[in-house]
């Protein structure tokens, strides 16, 4: 009897892993199942980022943020120890798509304290699909690219047993604990996977030995996925993620987060039959709701106590189909639509006076519908052409009279806004002998102004100490992009490098408006978002994965970006040159890893945005792991020291005058059954 395709995956994968014989990416028994679906992923040029993710997630205690920050294309804007905002090639917020399993998810915090990345714990991460620039426009219109965190999927086992993993760990620098567990199994046509994670952390200590007040956080995360196989080649699946955070300190901001709740749900359908022309079909219906409330009750010297609740609600769907006309000619089609509602308010409670209430995000909704296509044509085994196009229709509206009244105070247009967004990318890849390749790509990208940029109402920005007001007449930000790259994907020596140049039109920036008086006590004034003119950005990134000896590997990444406005000013939030290099010796049971992070100083700064010069730094980390049988099961012990020399440092994208954690000793234990 023919075996079902999905039953075969674990077996196939096992063989794959065994054959590849790379101790780098798969010695951990529990991770095997997690690697699974890489098999199903369409071949992407950027698979390097997925390999790096696999390498860095080897450290079980690592948060998704730890992993992302090590990818050369990514940097994180940090306002606290938790909830860092991901940027791709230093494009942030509305310039990039941050997706969870292909779903759009908007934070409920006007201060961006809740990027979508916080809802995915590494144990629930199947892989990361990261595409830069117009290459990422398949899933959404954006300038910087798309990062899509694929959620771990249930798997079919040969037995009906419950499989699981439990892990726990401790971090000395913040007296932090985490614990996580996975239970999964299958029964007949059903497969399920459930997981839970908690993290709690006190204030951390920086390299000067100073405790950083309000850097604590607490969270729990739970997931449930159930899959039902319809045929040999198709299944339906339901996914639920619940994430609750509380008492999360934001040392770089004047307020903390009292409560942050996210509920993410989806049902999806997939067909995968390589024998057909329409070999992969996928569709998903989803809904998510994020609630967020800021809290200043624990802060000393608060002039007026205030509440700042926010809500975001998104519903949407996407459908993709993968057509393979011939081995060298394929077309990927995608249609998606979503609707997002946002509202946030602020209430201040002065003594003996009525409360002061305002909407900071006047109630607004964005309806989006898009179609995109990616055509890949291999002229011969050496030449590949890839063309990618996307068209988005977006309607933005204020949904209540109260919201319209707010926006009219600042002279905004309260009518519905309609935009058409066009994205186009062309890539040419030329392969050479010994698995070496060259690629060149060019494209045009366009993005909508965000809800904050359109409708924001006195949104306080702690970074430059200004209140920000939206402008409803903002034009879309656009960019022309060019990139060339080269690489080699030989078995033991993989490297990849890319340099790019992006020219941006109608770059959106806050500009001081002296006619407005700041709402926030002590703020410097008010900035209004404006299309500030044109700007450019150039940079590059490279990575190397070198299996020097059967048990010894080196992984190294470098990145650099230079960005400037046509006015001659630097663009803000551009991370300086950075290199992260890891040396890992991994025997069957025992592994050691030495790692360094080196960042140059950033002197090319935007004084308009309130940036300061950031010094360079050099950090060293040391990690060890030991796997041993424990009864019938395998136990994995990990320990290490991060920032061994207790360096006092901050990264350029960090908010506030705060240093990052000093020396940290961690201990982690994981057992699978």
């Amino acid at each position, binding site marked *: 009897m023919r075996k079902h395709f999905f039953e075969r995956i674990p077996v196939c994968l096992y063989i794959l892993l065994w054959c590849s014989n790379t101790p780098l990416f798969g010695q951990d028994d529990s991770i095997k199942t997690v690697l699974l679906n890489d098999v199903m992923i369409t071949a992407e040029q950027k698979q390097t980022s997925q390999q790096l993710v696999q390498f860095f997630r080897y450290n079980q205690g690592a948060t998704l943020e730890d992993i992302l920050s090590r990818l050369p294309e990514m940097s994180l804007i940090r306002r606290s120890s938790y909830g860092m905002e991901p940027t791709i090639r230093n494009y942030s917020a509305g310039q990039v798509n941050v997706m969870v399993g292909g779903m759009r998810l908007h934070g409920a915090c006007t201060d961006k304290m809740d990027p979508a990345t916080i809802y995915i714990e590494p144990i629930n991460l199947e892989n990361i699909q990261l595409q830069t620039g117009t290459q990422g426009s398949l899933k959404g219109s954006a300038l910087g690219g798309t990062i899509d965190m694929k959620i771990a999927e249930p798997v079919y086992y040969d037995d009906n047993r419950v499989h699981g993993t439990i892990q726990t760990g401790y971090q000395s620098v913040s007296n932090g604990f985490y614990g996580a567990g996975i239970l999964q199994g299958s029964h007949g046509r059903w497969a399920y996977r459930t997981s839970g994670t908690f993290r709690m952390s006190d204030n951390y200590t920086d390299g000067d030995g100073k405790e950083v007040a309000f850097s604590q956080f607490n969270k729990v995360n739970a997931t449930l996925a159930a899959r039902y196989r319809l045929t040999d080649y198709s299944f339906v699946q339901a996914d639920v993620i619940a994430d609750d955070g509380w008492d999360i300190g934001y040392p770089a901001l004047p307020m903390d987060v009292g409560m942050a709740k996210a509920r993410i749900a989806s049902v999806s*359908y997939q*067909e995968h039959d390589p024998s057909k022309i329409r070999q992969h*079909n996928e*569709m998903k*219906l989803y809904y998510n709701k994020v609630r967020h409330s800021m809290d200043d009750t624990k802060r000393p010297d608060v002039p*007026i106590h205030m509440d700042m609740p926010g809500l975001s609600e998104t*519903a949407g*769907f996407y*459908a993709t*189909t993968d057509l393979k006309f011939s081995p060298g000619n394929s077309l990927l089609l995608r249609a998606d*639509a979503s*609707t997002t509602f946002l509202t946030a308010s*602020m209430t*201040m409670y*002065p003594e003996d*006076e*009525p*409360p*002061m*209430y*305002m*909407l900071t995000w006047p109630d607004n909704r964005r*309806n989006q519908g898009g179609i995109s296509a990616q055509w890949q044509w291999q002229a011969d085994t050496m030449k590949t052409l890839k063309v990618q196009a996307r068209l988005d229709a977006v309607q933005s509206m204020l949904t209540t009279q*109260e919201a*319209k*009244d*707010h926006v*009219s*105070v*600042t*002279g905004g247009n309260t009518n519905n806004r309609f935009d058409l967004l066009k994205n186009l990318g062309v890539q040419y890849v030329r392969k050479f002998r010994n698995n070496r390749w060259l690629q060149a790509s060019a494209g045009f990208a366009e993005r909508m102004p965000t809800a904050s940029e359109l409708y924001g*109402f*006195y949104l306080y920005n702690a970074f430059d100490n200004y209140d920000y007001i939206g402008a409803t007449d903002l034009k879309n930000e656009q960019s022309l992009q060019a990139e060339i790259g080269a690489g080699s994907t030989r078995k033991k020596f993989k490297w990849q490098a890319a340099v790019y140049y992006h020219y941006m039109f109608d770059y959106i920036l806050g500009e001081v*408006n002296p*006619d*407005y*008086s*700041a*709402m926030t*006590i002590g703020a410097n004034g008010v900035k209004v978002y404006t299309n500030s003119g044109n700007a450019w950005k150039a940079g590059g990134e490279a990575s190397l994965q070198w299996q020097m000896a059967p048990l010894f590997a080196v992984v190294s990444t470098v990145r650099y970006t230079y960005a400037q406005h046509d006015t001659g000013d630097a663009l803000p939030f551009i991370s300086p040159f950075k290199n992260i290099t890891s040396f890992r010796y991994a025997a069957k049971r025992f592994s050691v890893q030495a790692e360094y992070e080196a960042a140059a100083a950033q002197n090319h700064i935007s004084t308009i945005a309130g940036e300061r010069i950031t010094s360079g730094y050099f950090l060293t980390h040391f990690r060890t792991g030991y796997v041993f049988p424990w009864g019938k099961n395998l136990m994995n012990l990990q320990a290490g020291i991060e920032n061994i020399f207790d360096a006092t440092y901050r990264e350029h994208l960090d908010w506030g005058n705060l240093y990052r954690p000093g020396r940290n000793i961690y201990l982690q234990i994981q057992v699978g059954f």
Partner: protein
Amino acid sequence: MTFKNIFSLTLLSLIIFFSSCKKEETNANPVTGLTKTGSGFAVGAATKVDIYTNTAAIQSGFQKFFFVLTDSITGNYIDDAQIKLTPMMDMGTMKHSSPYENPASQKASNHLFEGSVFFIMSSMGGTWTIDVNVLNKLNNKEGKFTIPVTVQEPAQKRMLSFTSAVDNTSRYFVGLVQPSKPKVGINDLELVIYKRQNMMSFPADSALSLTFEPEMPTMNHGSPNNVNPVHKGNGHYKGKVNFTMTGLWRLHFTLKAGDAIAKADSLDIEF
């Protein structure tokens, strides 16, 4: 189920999900939302007069009144009439009137005649009465009656009374008309200015010019895009005031006679 079926089902459910309907309501009763002050019979005009305000209580400052006239026998609405008001304050030792506006039109709008009285003090100092004189245009008969009113001091004062610093003799009364229901957003700002001629006569004034600056005293900030009130007729000055949030707002007014400042003072609005 095929992929196509699921796709069309999804589209359908999305369409249902996003479609919604709205209901609109209309109200016929002319006095809905108004507070009844009292009633009286304009003897001789065969007219019953019901008096209403658009506020819960009558307060010192500019106060709108609404008059509903009905035939005292049939109860039918009388929509053609001329109403004349005479407010009077009896302080025992002396009497004085106050500024007022008779209903401008002799035609009722939705059965309502709208007038106003600017109470320059509360009932603390004596007894306020209003003489209501009605000329019923249907029968061309005239009659009048007097109704006592209790004028309260509002929580936030709604008027300024001052002697001009320019000539030290002219006595002005400035009343806040709008916003009567302040909201976050753009609000109509309307003030009315009267000048005292004698104790019985307070004609509307249009000689002064007005500028203002809103402020949240607790927060020490203002608001953008305000429009200074300019004279639009009958002593009424109209402009715009923007409130960026609820709470206590202070409007700092500067009143000028030519280039000379007659008075600088503020009124608070709390909501």
